[in-house]
Structure formats: C-alpha cells, structure tokens
C-alpha cells in the first residue's frame, strides 16, 4: 500500500521532479506540477493528503494557493516551501491555512517528517 499521496508545486520543475522521484523511492505517491493553477486542476481530479508548495511562484504564489485549498479542498494539508525563510511569510502562510513551513534547500527526511506531522495535525484538527 502506498504511503501518503503528495502533490508538489514549484515553478522549478527540475526540483519538483527530483523530489517526486525521491518520495516515490520511499513508497509515497508523488505528483509534481509547475504552477498553482495546475495544482488546483490536479486537486479537482484526484485526492491528495498533502500539498507541498513554493511560496514564490509566478501568477499565484503558495500562500494564495493555500487559501484556495482551504476553501475548495479542505481535506488536503498544505506545507509551504520558500527560498527566503522570512517570518512574515511563515505567519501569512499559517493564517492562510498552511500546517508547516520549510526553508529551501530542504532535507528530504525533514520534509517527510513535516508532511506526516502536517497530515496528522490536520486530521486531529478536523476531527475536534
């Protein structure tokens, strides 16, 4: 049985592809897309446990995407990634509904832990 189902969103497609390949080697189902719009399409088509999205993307960034996910796909937990690691982004991300926040470059083990924690925390929050 597959581990969690993860949707990776970053305009850096090479990053998304490498992360997806590594997660799949660890038993996750991972799908990578290069924009927030593509992510929303993917969420309309399939169920994902968690969405890992970059904060800074053209057109729609990760924080705006997190808000849209909270409204349209409340079942998915959101983890945000950033190249800057600013506290303001972290606070805005939290307000937008993100469960966690990681600064690039990330450690895959950290990402996996954060993904699992985010999904568990979301389940707890939704059931309370």
């Amino acid at each position, binding site marked *: 049985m597959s581990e969690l189902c993860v949707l990776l969103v970053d305009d850096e497609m*090479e*990053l998304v592809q*490498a992360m997806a390949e*590594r997660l799949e*080697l660890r038993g996750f189902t991972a799908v990578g897309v290069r924009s927030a719009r593509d992510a929303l399409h993917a969420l309309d088509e399939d169920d994902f446990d968690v969405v890992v999205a970059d904060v800074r993307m053209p057109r729609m960034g990760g924080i705006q995407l997190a808000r849209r996910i909270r409204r349209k796909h409340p079942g998915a937990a959101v983890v945000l990634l950033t*190249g800057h690691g600013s506290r303001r982004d972290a606070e805005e991300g939290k307000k937008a509904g993100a469960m966690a926040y990681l600064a*690039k*470059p990330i450690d*895959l083990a950290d990402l996996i832990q954060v993904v699992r924690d985010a999904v568990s925390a979301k389940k707890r929050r939704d059931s309370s």
Partner: protein
Amino acid sequence: MTAGRDLKRAGLSFFGDVTAGITHDIRNSLAILKEISGLLSDLGDAAGEGGTLDAERVKSIAGRLDVQVNRANATVGLLNRFAHSVDVPRRRIDLRETVAMVGDLAKSKAVRKRVSLEVVLPEHGLGVEGDPFLLEHVIFLLLGMTIESAERGGTVTLALSPAGPGATICFEGAGRGKVRMEGAVSHLLTLTGCTAEYEGRGDTLVLELPGRMPGKESTDHG
C-alpha cells in the same frame, strides 16, 4: 534628508534588491542540486541493498546535475559582474553588456508580475562614458516602473539603439499610463545627464543617453 543621502540610500536599496533576487535564484539552484544529488545517493543505496543500478538513469541524472551547476554558475557570474560595476566611478561603458545585464537582473521581477521581458540589442558595439553603477540604477528603475505598469500577461521590451554620440533606450509595454520622474529617478537622470520622456499615449518610455555623462572622477553613490 539631503538629495545626496537620498541617492546613497536609493543606491543601497538597488544593490539590496538585486542581491535579494539573485540569492533567491542561487538558493533555488542549491535546492535542486541537493535533490538531484540526493536522488543519486538514493539509487546507490537501493543498488547496495540488492537492487540494480540503471546506468542510463545515472547518466541522465549526472546530466541534470551539470545543467544546474551551469545555471548556478551563470547566476553567480551575473552577481559578480553587477558587483564590479562600483569598481570605478567613471569608465567607458559597453551599453550592450549593461542593458543585457540589467535585463537579466530584472527577469525575476517580470516573472513575478506575469510579464514577458524582451531585450533587443544592436548588432554592433555601443559605448558611452560615465558611471556604470548610476547608469545601471537608472535603467533598472525605469525598467521596474515599466514592468509595474505593464498589463498582466503583456510584454515589456527593452531596446537599445545608437543616437548620435550617445544612445537611446526604449522601454516599451507600459500599459497604465505615465509615471512621474521624481525622487531617485529624477536625481539619477540629472547626475547621468540623461533625459526620460514618454512617447505617444505613454506606452513607451524613451531614455536618451549622452555620449559623455557629466561628472569627473568621483561620484558619491554609497
């Protein structure tokens, strides 16, 4: 605050803006390199545990690493060229290099604003004499203003052409009318001896550069 202090602050702000954008790009490259090298390591671990190592896949991953190293190298090279523009307060400026570099520096700004940025350079070399940093600063600010005012999904063109002993740089694609030349822009125009005016309905901003910018050996830009 005096005009000189304002300009010093604006110069630092320009340097900071560029550095923040480039470090973001470098971080992205490092993040990708880390993931790809991690993938290589994962495949090695899997092979060590009795799996097979697909030589073609390893070769393809090495190629992906190479692409990212070249990309990061180009980004660092851009920062290095920009950092050296404060080395001397006055020199012969290769305008094709300068305009191309400012275009590269503003690329992420354009991406964030959903605007395509095109740089059009003349076939032959074109030079003026002056302070390279001040000139880069004024071009960057005018380009930023044009990008900010462009229609979403539109194209901004930065076009360099010779004009008498100097040159003309056109910023085409401003979609939301004219912006007043004030503050640091106005001060930089005076210091560089350049003029900037909108053409037509305000969708093109034209910067006229003299062959020799005013000023002697030192210009205080912090």
